[in-house]
């Protein structure tokens, strides 16, 4: 049913949890639907672009390009503020350990493949691994909101299952923590410690989602979400008969950030051979 080679990610699973029909259209049918997601469109696009540029800047920095070289190319004031915030985020800069920016790990979960691309992993072999995730939201969601996101469950789980090679041996969940750093609130990182119990609960939960997905047939229309507010920022709204106008970007709250998360970081899969 899913295309061959398909791998689950936090973003696709979040889509399923938010709306099974959206998951079906996006991943089972790979159906493009070119409606506007949020208005004013150019402002929304600029925000997404700024987020992507920020991620690239940090990746470059973590790869060893000096900060002053990078800063000289920043023209946008908001971006510059985020960048300065990042430079002042001592927790990340002072930490010992090997750094892996934009690293993808994948693990088998009951015969399905689950993948996670980490903004930054800092690894102290045998001792500790910290997952850093940069968020370029305008507001700062509460810890509770972050806790409810599938990303908070998928990332540590994949890391524990697939990080042994980086860690120099099996990863014990208590050695893992995850830090969300929101660019406009640079001094208020949100940290989650991981544990064996959480790992077991998360594994059960993610397995149940995959089982649920597997139960579906593709020749039927999967369940449409009952939370109509999700449809405001969903490109399929006309197909589902859920309205004709895109939601307002200014009203886009962090409960709907999956639409941004799914676009912010261009996947390396998108790097096309440019032939002639």
């Amino acid at each position, binding site marked *: 049913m899913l295309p*061959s*080679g398909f791998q689950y990610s936090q973003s696709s699973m979040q889509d399923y949890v938010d709306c099974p029909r959206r998951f079906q259209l996006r991943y089972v049918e790979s159906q493009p639907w*070119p409606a*506007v997601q949020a208005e004013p469109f150019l402002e929304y696009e600029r925000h997404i672009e700024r987020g992507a540029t920020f991620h690239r800047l940090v990746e470059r920095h973590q790869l060893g390009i000096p900060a002053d070289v990078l800063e*000289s190319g920043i023209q946008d004031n908001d971006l510059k503020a985020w960048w300065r915030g990042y430079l002042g985020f001592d927790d990340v800069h002072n930490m010992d350990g090997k750094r892996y920016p934009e690293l993808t790990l*994948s693990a088998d979960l009951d015969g399905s493949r689950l993948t996670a691309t980490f903004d930054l992993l800092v690894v102290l072999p045998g001792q500790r691994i910290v997952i850093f995730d940069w968020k370029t939201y305008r507001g700062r969601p509460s810890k509770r909101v972050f806790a409810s996101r599938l990303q908070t469950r998928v990332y540590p789980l994949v890391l524990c299952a697939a990080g042994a090679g980086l860690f120099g041996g099996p990863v014990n969940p208590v050695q893992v923590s995850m830090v969300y750093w929101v660019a406009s609130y640079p001094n208020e990182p949100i940290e989650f410690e991981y544990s064996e119990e959480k790992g077991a609960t998360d594994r059960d939960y993610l397995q149940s989602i995959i089982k649920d997905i597997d139960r579906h047939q593709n020749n039927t229309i999967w369940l449409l979400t009952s939370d109509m507010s999700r449809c405001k920022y969903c490109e399929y709204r006309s197909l589902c008969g859920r309205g004709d106008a895109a939601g307002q970007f200014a009203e886009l709250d962090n409960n709907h950030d999956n639409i941004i998360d799914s676009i912010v970081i261009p996947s390396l899969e998108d*790097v096309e051979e*440019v032939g002639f």
Partner: protein
Amino acid sequence: MPESWFLEGPAGAGKTTYAIQYCHDLVRNDVSPEAILVMVPQRALGRPYQLAFTGSDWPNGTQIDIVTLGGLARRGLEMFWPLIADKAGFAHPEWEPAFLTIETSQYFMARFVNSAVKTGIFDSINVPPFRIMGQLLDNMSKAAVNGFLLDEVADRLITAWGDRHSSRPSVYRAGVDIAQHFREYCLQNNLLDFSLQIELFMNHLLSEPVYRNFFASRYGHLIADNIEEYFPVADDFIRDVWQELDSALLIYDTDGGYRVFLGADPGGMHVLRNLCDHIEIITETRVISPEAAALVSEFDHLLALNSLPPLLEVNPGEIITIASHKFYPDMIEWVVARIVELIAQGIPPGEIVILAPYLGDSLRFVLMSRLEEAGIAAVSHRPSRAVRDEPAARAALTLLALAHPAWEYHPPAADVADALHQVIDDLDPVRAWLLAQIVYRPGRDELGSFDGIRAGAQERITYRAGEKYERLREWLIRYRSEADEVPPDHFFSRLFGELLSQPGYGFHADFEAGRVVAQLVESARKFRRTLYPDGVDQWDAVTHEYFTLVQDGVLAALHVPSWQQQEEDAVFLAPAYTFLMRNRWVDYQFWLDVGSNQWWERLEQPLTHPYVLARNYPLDQVWTDDLEFRYRRDALRRLLMGLVRRCRKHIFMSITSLGEQGYEQRGPLLHLLQQIVQRYGDVQEAAE
């Protein structure tokens, strides 16, 4: 120095399977997957690796990178840009670069070509501007993948031209001058077309210490598959990083080299075997029958050695059926009837391909329609089709023109009727035509309202359709007041989402229209973001510019991701080379029109030359008819052997005495087949 292997063998020998197993072994021996770099000449050929590395038997861990040289270059440039931009001579090294696609390269190239065309310099070659752009970009790419300077392109072309017709050298020179202006413009504006990406990667990034450290600490193991399809710079790249590798596996397909016309250098890549510690040559293929192997041998002897092979015990004719027809339509009927029979026998449609040297739109259309009528799933490869040729895109473009009367472009009434028919659910073509006749007056500012139509006509059109038409008309009028704030991609997105895909409109739940309009939006977005990355105060002129480029045929950006198509269980209809580059095996092949000369002709491209613009072509050599003949024979040999090696069961070949254009057919492939028939006698013939 790495521990290295060179593995050579024909298609179907199991080389890629071996390479995948090799990756498994590396990982089992504690090599971290991210330290393995798999290189392929084009993305589709990376698919077997991708599937293997996402299978449930693949160990948990980091991911193996599967890249093309172009992909590796682009990734490296994106990430390490600040380190090389200044040294590479960009006017604004502090700005981010824009990576151009073929399409967006053409937008910029159009400015230079169009003004040169006006001077008359290209009059003697009689080629439309968008083809000139394509060929000049092709020359730039050829220079990059061979490591030439642009001047060398002109020198090579002029030398090879010899003392034939005298205006051509100045045309070549003018072409290279344009390319140089284009390059200068790119350096001024941080634009990276394919050729510049390759040059920057090879000449700057690879020697940049930070990148070099990154590369060396990241990758220890190289697997390079199908190296016979690589450009000469890939050879340079492999030699450059060789000493830093822990291991390397180079894989060479003996009879490949299908991308020679794009710049591939199978001969040069073969020399890489001299670097390797272990050389393994497989001669057997696991996939094909002895009869197919005999046919491969016949083609090989007849074309490479120009000699008759000894008569074999197995009859190569047993895997082919040749049918003769007088006219093209008879051939099509015959092909469809055979396919219907095969499917009735339980053969999956995905095990059948229909191949032609070139696949024109009309042939494609007729075959696709006939297969559809027969209830057979079929997909056809369309390498590039103009946006405006897609009905859904054409309708959207017509509505764009109607929304901008100030442009004074008046779409033909037939286009307006067609757009109305497509986008309004209840309008059949007759009613749509009637409505268009009444409400559309070329030159008038806006469409007439439904309320203003006589009652009788309203009834014929129906009030339901009229109501929807009114909503569309009002949408277009409302949009006009905002046109300056709306870029072209946003126009299409809004029109689609707010109206055309709403319940009651033609694109609602029309997945194909969704796909086509999505590509139109993507094309317009790339245009806007590449040419106007900082935005403009008023978008109307930009939208007009985009529209004009579409009308001029500069855009050809509609592609279906290649493997998405390939994996459908459907009969695949494609040009022969396209099929070869997918590296697929099927049970049954149909070769159309084997009498056609097109089986060995190359595209007429007066501004470029695939063989002369190659590193291994002597700089001082004139291109002669004799050389043309030899290269064609070699290309035909590779093509035929490659096709037969990818067929497990049977090849149906059809001959038409009068080809698609109604001329008699006596091409070289036909001649070869006649020789084989004469030697073995009992080839199955299915004369009609």
